[in-house]
């Protein structure tokens, strides 16, 4: 075992060990996508792969305190563009824990039935995870699930107009001083002429109009043509 590698807890259930991230497995014995399982001090952890999860990549890349990028354990959060649930599962480890002992609530919205097929399966094993089949833009169809504003919101939707979807979601559902994370895929914006830096610069300008931009994290290397923006609602 790597005894001399630096271990640093980012939260009760997320651990940074050298350059790898681990989260306490809320569903012990089960790996979601073949990630490695390992015990630290007798507690089973799942490896959180930064090549598969943009949130993990951002946690490793950020120049600020990575624990500020995570929501408070036991809170309610909104995740738009849930995908097949890789990031969601680790977020659930952090937010809810086994049997939802921390009583967190993770609203995971995605448009694709194929993704929801995996998410509903995941949700059955992980109480606290609420999968929603719906369009991130059509908040009317799922917004009633969030009676209060949330303190943490993540968006990864890879469709044109990502920034508008994000700012609109922030206005509707993020509380004051809440943290919003936007994973932006440059290739999804329909600017054939615009280069990647231009797309990101335009996004920064648009975000800064109404939000406080805390950090622009470049994910090149983990996920090319992607950047993650961290904002705080004023």
């Amino acid at each position, binding site marked *: 075992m790597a005894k001399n590698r630096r271990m640093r807890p980012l939260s009760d259930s997320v651990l940074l060990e050298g350059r790898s991230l681990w989260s306490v497995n809320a569903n012990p014995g089960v790996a979601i996508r073949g990630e490695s399982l390992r015990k630290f001090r007798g507690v089973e952890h799942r490896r959180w792969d930064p090549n598969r999860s943009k949130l993990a990549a951002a946690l490793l890349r950020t120049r600020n305190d990575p624990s500020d990028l995570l929501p408070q354990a036991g809170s309610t959060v909104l995740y738009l563009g849930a995908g097949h649930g890789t990031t969601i599962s680790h977020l659930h480890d952090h937010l809810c824990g086994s049997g939802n002992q921390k009583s967190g*609530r993770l609203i995971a919205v995605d448009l694709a*039935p194929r993704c*929801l*097929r995996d*998410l*509903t399966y995941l*949700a*059955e094993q992980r109480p606290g995870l*609420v*999968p*929603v*089949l*719906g369009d991130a833009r059509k*908040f*009317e*169809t*799922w*917004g*009633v*699930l*969030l*009676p*209060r504003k949330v303190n943490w919101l993540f968006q990864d939707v890879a469709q044109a107009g990502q920034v508008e979807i994000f700012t*609109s979601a922030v*206005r*509707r*559902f993020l509380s004051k001083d809440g943290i919003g994370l936007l994973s932006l895929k440059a290739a999804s914006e329909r600017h054939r002429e615009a280069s990647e830096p231009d797309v990101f610069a335009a996004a920064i300008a648009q975000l800064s109009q109404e939000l406080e931009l805390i950090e622009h994290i470049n994910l090149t290397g983990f996920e090319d043509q992607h950047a993650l923006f961290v904002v705080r609602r004023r």
Partner: protein
Amino acid sequence: MWLWYSWHSAAVVNEEGDVLDIESNDARFSVHAVKQRLQRIANGLLSPEAEILAERFPDAKPIVHGSEGLPEFDVPQPTEQQIGLADEASLLLAKEGVAISAADPDRRLEHLSRASEELRTLHLSMEAQLIEWVGLFLPSARFETNRGSVAGRLSEVASLTEFATALEVDDAHEQPTPSEWKALHGWAVMVANQRRQLDQLEHAIRVSAQAHLPSVSTLVGPLLAARLCVEAHGRSRLARLPSGTVQVLGAEKAFFNHLRNGSAPPKHGHIFMHPWISRSPRWIRGKIARMLASKISIAARIDAFGGTPMKQEDVDKVEAKVEAIRTEFSTPKRR
């Protein structure tokens, strides 16, 4: 004045954020009842509480929870138990949505089409392997004219000698060992079965495409119709594409090369499959492709938006146009 509503309660709020009236339902709902309420709201309908308030305040503008433009006010909160129910109901709704997605003919056609493409590629390479294999043992046999029947005939014989007799060629000088023959024969059986499987797949594609895209199928045949539909990611998207895109669907590589490097643009994508294009001389293929793509666009729009399906006489008119182009440009333009 607004009528704010969520799945569990509703309130009437004025411009100052004062709550004028409130209808809350503290009943112990069943998961099923919550699911129905969530579904109503997703479909843009009012919750039962909101309907009561709408009668009392006909001037209040209904606005669902989460909308912008509402003044700050004390939003009625569901109980912990109600939140738990909403989460359960949401999971049920998601599962239902996933199950219903199998009804989408675009998705079904996509699987059929991808399966058939995959199998065709596999079949061709396995067949080539079989012919090379047999050719090693029977060097005097030629398979140029009857490639397709080799697998079927070989799968029905008991030995290579029998096959050589049937082909009327010299028997093998070197015989395969029994285990080798078993493997070779098994391979032939598999290739022959692939043929049947391919026919089944194509039959299924024809039937689905004729139901899903009747006009496009009548115009260019169900197999090409299915391909175009899958390439466009669905019927409604095919109907919304400009016909210039329909013309080069399936030739994306050449098209983006053209944009990037200025190489010659592609004149046809999948529609090249159609004999009007592939059996026409090279110099008019672009013209016919352009005309045919516009007709396919019209046909796709008829199918997607519920028009009167195209009939054979409509196809005849298009064919007449093809003939007109063929006669007008019977010789290549001199450069």
